[in-house]
């Protein structure tokens, strides 16, 4: 078994107009910047994919990664918990101009909806958001005297995530807190595409230390010296590179 694809363009080739794409990362940690930029390259060359629904904790920063995807006009709807940050210029402008739809989800509910999507659980009850504006219209049930809000699973056509090491079977390890949403997004997506700092032979990752088993992964591509969103933004980078 060998799930590697030959380059970034091949890795994102199957993403079509109107698809739902989960993108890993929290702030600068775990963002699959090279995969996102490969998707933007395809859009610049072909006009596709567009009208994407993107699931991420945030709404991007600066003019790279997810922010650049939004800036390119490829995103119809964003499902996220915190679309405000230090430099959210792109999303803020589009949102206030009514050009992008937002589904705001509490962060833990977002993680659990994705987990449920990957685990075959269509709905679950959570105490989070009970009695707030974000629970409006959702069924409520009382368990052991407390009220809980029913939330639905969240699934995607594709997930784009970043790992430290992948083996050819797609077994993954993540680096530090770059793990965040990646394991649950890998579970919840029909096709999970991984950019890994290194790809190794099966057996090279100790089975005790596999963070995400390869059954949740469909495509892997090696990106040896991946950039960090935080570093790009500190350098005021934009994508595509100006000029």
């Amino acid at each position, binding site marked *: 078994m060998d799930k590697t694809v030959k380059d970034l363009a091949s890795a994102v080739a199957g993403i079509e107009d109107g698809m739902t794409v989960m993108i890993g990362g929290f702030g600068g940690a775990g963002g699959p910047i090279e995969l996102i930029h490969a998707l933007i390259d395809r859009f610049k060359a072909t006009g596709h994919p567009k009208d994407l629904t993107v699931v991420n904790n945030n709404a991007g920063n600066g003019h790279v990664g997810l922010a650049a995807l939004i800036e390119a006009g490829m995103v119809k709807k964003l499902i996220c918990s915190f679309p405000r940050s230090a430099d959210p210029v792109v999303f803020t402008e589009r949102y206030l101009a009514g050009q992008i739809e937002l589904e705001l989800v509490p962060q833990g509910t977002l993680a*659990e909806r994705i987990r449920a999507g990957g685990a075959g659980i269509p709905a679950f009850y959570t105490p989070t958001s009970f009695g707030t504006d974000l629970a409006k219209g959702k069924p409520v049930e009382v368990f052991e005297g407390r009220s809980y809000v029913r939330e639905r699973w969240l699934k995607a056509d594709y997930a784009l995530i970043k790992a430290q090491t992948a083996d050819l079977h797609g077994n993954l390890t993540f680096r530090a807190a770059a793990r965040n949403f990646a394991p649950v997004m890998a579970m919840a997506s029909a096709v999970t595409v991984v950019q890994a700092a290194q790809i190794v032979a099966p057996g090279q990752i100790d089975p005790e230390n596999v963070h995400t088993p390869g059954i949740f992964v469909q495509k892997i591509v090696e990106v040896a010296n991946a950039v960090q969103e935080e570093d790009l933004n500190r350098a005021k980078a934009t994508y595509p590179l100006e000029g």
Partner: protein
Amino acid sequence: MQKLSNNQIAWRAAQDIQDGAYVNLGIGFPEKVAQYTVEGREAIFHTENGILNFGESPAPGEEDWDVINAGKKAVTLKPGASYFHHADSFAMVRGGHLDVAILGAYEVAENGDLANWSTGPKGVPAVGGAMDLVHGAKRVAVITDHVTKDGKPKLVKQCSLPLTGVGCVTRVYTSLAVIDIVEGRFVLREKLASMSLEELQALTGAELVIDGPVTDLVVPEL
């Protein structure tokens, strides 16, 4: 009028964190509480993005941007730290595994309702982990100025801003007092000695109930 600085409010809140406690501090002002962990006690800090037992910020230039907190600031790890994914992180939050969450507030109502995520319909709404954090921790404490910048009470009968959670706050540490929420009432526990009960009540938007001793709120210069 004498009042506590933010550092002093954070210091007071830190005194109630027991040895061995698992603690989540909200982004911003609540992060200060970590600086005042009581000597001889060990608290383990949790961050929503998947770290237990993180410590101080690294020196400038030493940042590892894969090791950040929920405020997206670089942090360091203490011995015994762990990483985990987001679903596990929020299982820790909602599953009742945290001993205390300490959060900021726009308004707290006498029944324990908290408003701390939205100031109204303008701009881009963002909730993050606020609505999750108010459920599940064994204690949900708030640290806040006693009044707004315009001098209006932040402790109120009923929140006017969008709620983060219903009936979730158990204790409020303000710039003037320490107040518990017990059965839908503000019960005064400590107040600055320089302030009379009448003066404090005038700055509070709901009745301050006396039920048991009220001691002086004493905090060192910081």
